[in-house]
């Protein structure tokens, strides 16, 4: 593309964003630190003042373990206080620290029903004192997701909706459109075999199913480390040290 055209297109993009009412807050992004993923996202990362959806694939749609871990990693890297809302009390809090979300950083809200989760989610997003709010939800209608998105835009707090359902059939709901900026699906994969007995670092099939201003993509990644960073997984199973080299090559 000639540079003149590129300038025109970027100008048009900015004007469209202005019409769409996307506040300046959404312009700051949180990169994953993995060039292969960041390149696929507009402005090179997850928008901060925006709502993002995460769900588990296969059995993960019901237990939401990997989705919660992925969300915890993102929330941890926003750096401030995090509110975690849920109705099903099966979250094991010490595990969040392994995804980078320290114990001091997170406050939990145990709700009786989904309506109070939505209310609390919106209130917390609108307040602006938190850096991210995570809510485990089953249903998320278009209207409520739009409210959440507007609340996130006004304050610059990142909203992460971890979608999980009581039954597998209900997971069809994930196909319905919402106002979220991005939609992710995390499915557990077998970990890379270790040269010794044991279970290696978890690996996920990470699907970017929907992305406003970007295209969908698939990644195979290694689960969050203790700082909340994911990494692209190495294809060469017995050479996990090669991940770094692969990352550099992908970046160049």
């Amino acid at each position, binding site marked *: 593309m000639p540079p003149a055209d590129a300038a025109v297109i970027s100008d048009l993009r900015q004007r469209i964003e202005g019409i769409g009412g996307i506040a300046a807050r959404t312009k700051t992004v949180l990169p994953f630190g993995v060039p292969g993923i960041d390149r696929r996202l507009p402005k090179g990362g997850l928008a901060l003042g925006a709502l993002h959806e995460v769900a588990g694939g296969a059995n993960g749609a019901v237990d939401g373990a990997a989705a919660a871990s992925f969300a915890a990693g993102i929330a941890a890297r926003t750096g401030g206080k995090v509110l975690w809302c849920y109705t099903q009390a099966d979250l094991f809090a010490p595990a969040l620290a392994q995804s980078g979300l320290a114990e*001091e950083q997170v*406050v939990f809200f145990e709700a009786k029903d989904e309506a109070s989760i939505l209310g609390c989610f919106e209130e917390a997003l609108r307040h602006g004192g938190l850096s991210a709010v995570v809510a485990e939800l089953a249903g998320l209608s278009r209207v409520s997701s739009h409210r959440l998105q507007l609340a996130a835009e006004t304050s610059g707090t990142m909203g992460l909706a971890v979608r999980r359902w009581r039954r597998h059939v209900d997971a069809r709901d994930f196909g319905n459109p919402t106002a979220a900026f991005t939609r992710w699906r995390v499915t557990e994969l077998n970990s890379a075999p270790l040269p010794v007995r044991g279970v290696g670092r978890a690996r*996920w099939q990470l699907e970017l199913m929907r992305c406003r201003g970007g295209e969908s993509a698939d990644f195979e990644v290694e689960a969050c480390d203790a700082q909340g960073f994911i990494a692209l997984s190495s294809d060469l199973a017995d050479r996990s040290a090669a991940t770094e080299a692969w990352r550099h090559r992908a970046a160049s």
Partner: protein
Amino acid sequence: MPVAKAESLFADLVIMDADPSGDAVALEKLAIWALRLYSPIVATDPPDGLVLDIQGAAHLHGGEAGLISDVIARLADLGITAYAALADTWGAAHALARFSCQTTRIVEPGGQADALLKLPIAALRLPAEMTPDLLLLGLDTIGELAAKPRAPLTQSFGPKLFRRVDQAFGRLAEPIEPVESPALISVQRIFAEPIGAPETLEKYTRRLTDAICDRMEEAGLGSRRLDLHYTRVDNRIETIFVATAKPVRDPKRLGRLLCDKIETVDPGFGIDKMTLTAAFVEPLVPKQIGAQYSAPPRPDVEELWDTITNRYGRECLYRAVSVATDIPERAVKRASPTSTEVGSKRNAGYRRPQRIYRRPEPILTLAALPDHPPRAFTWRGQRYSVLCSDGPERVRGEWWRNDNEKGKVRDYFILEVDNGERFWAFRAGDGQHEGTGSLNWYLHGKFD
């Protein structure tokens, strides 16, 4: 009795000057003490008594008998010997506490007439000069007085005599003028025309909040709890309250917390009085605001915690603090969101699952004893074959908590199955000794 005579009767008599005004002040203090502990309506009954209206408050202290014995016991702790009586009327309770010769006396509802008949007329709270005259007429007990024709006695003693009798028997109402706690900051607004629309309620709620914040600022206090009473025209009182984690006197913030709850108020035919009271206050000194050279700081999250706890309840918002224990069920305790408690790092180095099942779920396994992980297992009707595993991590029962856990063992394994899911499973028992557990296998969690 002259002092000299008294000294001759008791060898170690302690003599003090009477201090009626000091006694009155102390009695007032005691009334406020009772107001905070027992009942919203308490008054002094000078020179030596307190009167409590315990209608609707007795159940908080284990019924009428429980309340009375509690009062007596607490006063005894303070070094005060007290007598108490409970009756339908102030007059009857006053008389029985002083003249029934019992430490506590409870009269059944409607039974005060029988209880009073035998008591002397001095029990009737009559003016001091009236009692000797009545005694002169040969009237010793309340029963005798009540049986007399009223007209001649009223002519010579005035209407007060039989008013007291009627009050004691419950034929005439006698209001109690309650003491008010002096430390309580309270503002009130009375409406000429009853109000009922939510917008109007909100408007006046905000005005009252502004007023009470001014009052608190003068006193250098911040509120921890505000009570707002809406008195309706049919004399019912609708109450809302807000509590905060730290003392606050920001009218905007308190107004928002209160207005959040207005929807729970039923105005009925209208509200003609609003009273806003700072029920708990703490000192709050003004704070120097920072210079605005850097980026504006994020808003205070405590405000958000207050909003959420006032709307959804105090216990639903918490911080999870790790406990120094190996047993997963006890690994976390809840602390308030503002607490700065630091959790234990005892198990920080071990992999822990994202999800944990409240009750470990039994699975059917194929596993070699004594300490091999299962090769395959069946859970919820589905069969999984294990590709690789990690473990065992042995967790011992905490015998100091209860006897059932003594000698019990769980061996935890991380199991990765063929579709990539990772589970946390354990075997009850060490695989060799029957006493350490049932040797059954359970799933306890799911990894990311």
